[in-house]
C-alpha cells in the first residue's frame, strides 16, 4: 500500500514538473493551443456544414471563433502580466505570442471561408459526361493500368483516373471528355475528409484525354511551383527509366522508392508482404530518408567546420525534397529536418524539445487541415518516440541490467525501431485496426541494408549516364542487396500470425496512455536524449 502511494506521488510530481516545463516555454503552449483550436473548430465547422450551408450560421461560427480567441488571449495576458510584474518574464514574449495567435486565427479564417465558398457552390462544378478543359496538377503512375491525376477545374482541385499509357506532364492544359462529381465516403473510410485535407473537392472516375497542350508558360506566381514540379517529374522519370532499364521488378521499384520516394506499384502479393512486415515506410519518401541524409552528409563532410557542415546538410535535404517531387509528406519531413538542423546550428541542446511543437505550429499555419492527415500524425508520433520513448526504454534497461550505458549498436539498430513502432501503435491500432508484430525484426534487418543500398544505388545510377556498358556491373550490388531485402520482406510478410487484427479501437488509446505514463516514469529528465546524442558529436 505504501509503495502504491509512493508511485502515485512520483507520478504526480513528474506531472507537475512537466506542467511547469510547458508553462515556461511559450511555444509549447502555443502549439498545444493551435492544435486543439484547429481540431475543435474544424470539427465544429464540419458539423454545421453538414447541417446547413446557411451563411448566417457560418457567420455566427466565425464570430464565436474570434470571441473564443479573444477570451484565451485575455487569459494569457493576465497570466503573463502577472509574471512580468514579478519580473519573471519578458513583456516581449507576450507581443510575440499575440502576433502568432492572430496569424493562426487569420489562417483558420481563410481556410474556412475558402472551404465554405467551394462547398456552397459545389453544384456549379459538377457535370455529366461532356467536354471539359482541365489543367493537370499532379500525376501518380502507381497502379498497374491507370494513372491517377490531380486536376484543376475552374479553380477547384479534383482527382481522376487516366489511361496508363497517356503521356501527360504536370501543367498540361487538356481537352478531356469526363464526368465530374462530388466524392462520396466509403463504408469505413471518410474519403471526403481525406481528399479535403489535400484541398481536393471533385472526383472523376474516368477521364478520356482528347488532346493536351504541352506548352507551359508561367503566368502567375503559383505557376512557378508548378513549373518546378513539372520539370522535376520529367527529370525523375528519366532517372526511373534508367533504373528500369537495368533492374527487373521488384528491385527497380524498390530502388526508385528508396532513392526518390516515388510511389510505385508492386505485385499485389509483394505489396501485402511489405505491409505485413511493416517496411512500407522505407520505400516512401519520409522522415527516415531525411535523417539518413543529414547523418550521412555530416559523416562525409566531417573535415569542415560543424557550422558549414550543417548548412550543407540543410541544402542537401532540400535538394532531396525537391528531387522527390515536393510531395506533401516529404515536404513535411524536410521542414522537421530543417528545424532540427537550425536547432543544432543555434547550439542549444534544450531546443530539441521545442522541435516538434514549433514544427507542428508552423505546419498548421501552412495548412490547418494537416492535423487530420494520418501520415502527419504518424510521423509526429514516430519523432516523439525517438525523443521520449527511446531514452525511457534505455533508462529501463539500465535499471534492470544495472548498466552504465546501453551499447550503441543496440540503440541504433534495435531500440530506435522499437520506440518508433511503439509510439505509432495508438494510431495504427485505432485507425487501421491492425498492427504488425514482426515489423521490429524486419526493420532491424532491413534498415542497415537500405542505407548501403542508397549509396551503391546512387553510384550505379549516376554511372549509368556516363559509362553505359560498365554500369550493369555496378547495378549488380544494389540488385543483390535489394534481392536480400525482398527475401526478408517475403519471409516476414508470409508469417500468418505476424499481422494482428484489433477490433476494438480503444486498445490503441490504452497503449497511448500507458506509453505516456511509461515516459513520465522513466524519462531521464536531466540527461540528453537520443536525437541530441546522435547529432551532438557531428
Amino acid at each position, binding site marked *: 500500500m505504501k509503495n502504491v502511494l509512493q508511485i502515485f506521488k512520483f507520478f504526480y510530481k513528474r506531472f507537475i514538473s512537466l506542467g511547469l516545463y510547458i508553462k515556461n516555454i511559450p511555444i509549447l503552449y502555443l502549439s498545444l493551443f493551435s492544435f486543439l483550436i484547429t481540431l475543435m473548430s474544424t470539427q465544429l465547422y464540419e458539423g454545421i456544414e453538414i447541417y446547413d450551408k446557411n451563411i448566417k450560421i457560418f457567420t455566427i461560427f466565425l464570430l464565436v471563433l474570434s470571441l473564443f480567441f479573444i477570451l484565451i488571449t485575455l487569459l494569457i495576458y493576465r497570466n503573463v502580466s502577472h509574471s512580468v510584474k514579478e519580473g519573471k518574464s519578458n513583456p516581449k514574449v507576450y507581443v510575440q505570442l499575440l502576433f502568432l495567435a492572430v496569424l493562426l486565427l487569420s489562417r483558420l479564417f481563410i481556410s474556412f471561408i475558402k472551404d465554405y465558398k467551394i462547398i456552397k457552390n459545389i453544384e456549379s462544378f459538377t457535370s455529366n459526361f461532356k467536354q471539359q478543359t482541365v489543367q493537370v496538377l499532379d500525376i501518380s503512375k502507381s497502379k*498497374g*493500368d491507370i494513372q491517377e491525376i490531380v486536376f484543376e477545374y475552374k479553380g477547384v482541385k479534383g482527382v481522376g483516373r487516366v489511361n496508363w*499509357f497517356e503521356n501527360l506532364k504536370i501543367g498540361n492544359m487538356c481537352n478531356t471528355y469526363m464526368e465530374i462529381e462530388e466524392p462520396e465516403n466509403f463504408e469505413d473510410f471518410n474519403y471526403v475528409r481525406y481528399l479535403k485535407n489535400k484541398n481536393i473537392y471533385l472526383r472523376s472516375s474516368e477521364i478520356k484525354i482528347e488532346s493536351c497542350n504541352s506548352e507551359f508558360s508561367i503566368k502567375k506566381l503559383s505557376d512557378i511551383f508548378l513549373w518546378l514540379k513539372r520539370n522535376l517529374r520529367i527529370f525523375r522519370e528519366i532517372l526511373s*527509366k534508367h533504373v*528500369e*532499364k*537495368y*533492374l*527487373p*521488378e*521488384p*528491385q*527497380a521499384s524498390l530502388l526508385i522508392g528508396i532513392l526518390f520516394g516515388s510511389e510505385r*506499384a*508492386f*505485385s499485389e502479393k*509483394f505489396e501485402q508482404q511489405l505491409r505485413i512486415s511493416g517496411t512500407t515506410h522505407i520505400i516512401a519518401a519520409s522522415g527516415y530518408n531525411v535523417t539518413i541524409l543529414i547523418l550521412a552528409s555530416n559523416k562525409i563532410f566531417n573535415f569542415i567546420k560543424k557550422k558549414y557542415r550543417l548548412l550543407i546538410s540543410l541544402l542537401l535535404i532540400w535538394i532531396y525534397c525537391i528531387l522527390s517531387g515536393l510531395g506533401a509528406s516529404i515536404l513535411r519531413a524536410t521542414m522537421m529536418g530543417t528545424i532540427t538542423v537550425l536547432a543544432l546550428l543555434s547550439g542549444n541542446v534544450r531546443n530539441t524539445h521545442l522541435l516538434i511543437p514549433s514544427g507542428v505550429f508552423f505546419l498548421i499555419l501552412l495548412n490547418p487541415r494537416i492535423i487530420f492527415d494520418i501520415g502527419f500524425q504518424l510521423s509526429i508520433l514516430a519523432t516523439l518516440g525517438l525523443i521520449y520513448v527511446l531514452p525511457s526504454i534505455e533508462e529501463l534497461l539500465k535499471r534492470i541490467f544495472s548498466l552504465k550505458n546501453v551499447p550503441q549498436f543496440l540503440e541504433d539498430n534495435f531500440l530506435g525501431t522499437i520506440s518508433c513502432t511503439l509510439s505509432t501503435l495508438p494510431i495504427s491500432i485505432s485507425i487501421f485496426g491492425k498492427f504488425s508484430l514482426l515489423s521490429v525484426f524486419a526493420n532491424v534487418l532491413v534498415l542497415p541494408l537500405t542505407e*548501403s543500398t542508397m549509396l*551503391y544505388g546512387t553510384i550505379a545510377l549516376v554511372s549509368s549516364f556516363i559509362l553505359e556498358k560498365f554500369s*550493369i*556491373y*555496378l547495378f*549488380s*550490388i544494389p*540488385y*543483390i*542487396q535489394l*534481392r536480400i531485402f525482398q527475401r526478408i520482406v517475403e519471409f516476414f510478410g508470409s508469417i500468418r500470425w505476424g499481422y494482428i487484427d484489433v477490433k476494438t479501437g480503444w486498445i490503441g488509446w490504452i497503449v497511448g496512455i500507458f506509453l505516456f505514463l511509461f515516459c513520465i516514469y522513466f524519462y531521464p529528465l536531466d540527461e540528453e536524449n537520443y536525437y541530441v546524442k546522435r547529432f551532438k558529436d557531428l
Partner: protein
Amino acid sequence: MLKDLKIFKILLSLFWIGLGIFSYRANYQNERVIFFDVGQGDSILIQKGDFEILIDGGVDDSVVYKMGEYMKWSDRVIDVVVITHMHDDHYGGIKYLMERYEIGVFLLSPNCGDLCKEFKEYEFLEISQGMDIEHEDIDINVLWPRVGSLDKNLNNDSIVFLLEYLDKKILLMGDAEMEVEEIILENYGLDITNIDILKAGHHCSKTASTYEFLKIINPDMSICSCGEDNRFGHPHKETLDNFRNLNLQYYITWEEGDYIVE
C-alpha cells in the same frame, strides 16, 4: 576502435562488391516452361538459359513482375514474343514489357492486319500453319492459323502450336475454339495424340475443349489460365465436366498460381 571500424567497413564493401559480381556472373541453367498466373489472360514463358520465348502477356503489368521473378536479372532481352491474337487479355501486358525490355522479334498471326500495327513497327514475323520454328532442342510446330480468317471470331485467328521441349509434348491452344479444334484434328490427328500438357483453349471456356477433342489428344494435364471471379465465368463448368468425365487432371492458375514444367 576507430581503426577496427574502418577495416570493418572496407570488408563490408568488399563483401557487397563480391556478392554483386557473383550475382552477375552466376550461371543460369534453367530449362523450363512456365504458365504464369496473370489474372484473366494468358502468358506462357519458354526458357532455356537466357533464351526466352514469351507467348502472350496477360492483360496488365503482372507479366512484368513475373519476368522479374523468373528471368536472369542482367538479361534485358526477351528473344521472342508471340502474340497469339489481338485481344487485350493476350497483348495488354506486352506493352508494359516493351517499356522495360528489349524484344528480339514478334511472332504475329498473318490475319491480325491493322490491329497489330503497333507491333509491326518492330522486328516481326508472321507465322502460319505448317511452319516450324527451332532453337536448340526447342521445337515448335505451328498448327494454326492459315492465311485468311476462318470467321468473324477473332479467337479463331489464334496462333496454335505444338511445342516439343524437355521430352514433352505441349499443345498451346491460345483462344482457339471448337471450330479450330475440329480442323486441327482433321489435319494433324496423329501428331497430337497423347499430349503431355494442354493449355486449354479460351481460358477453359465451354466454347473450346470439346469432349471429342480431349478424348483424342488425351492430355496428362490441362491448364486453365484465368483470373479469380472473372466476368466471363471462366473456367466454365461444362469444360471442367469434360475433364472429369475423361478422368483428366486440370490446373486453374488463379487457384494454384504459376505452373512450372521442368
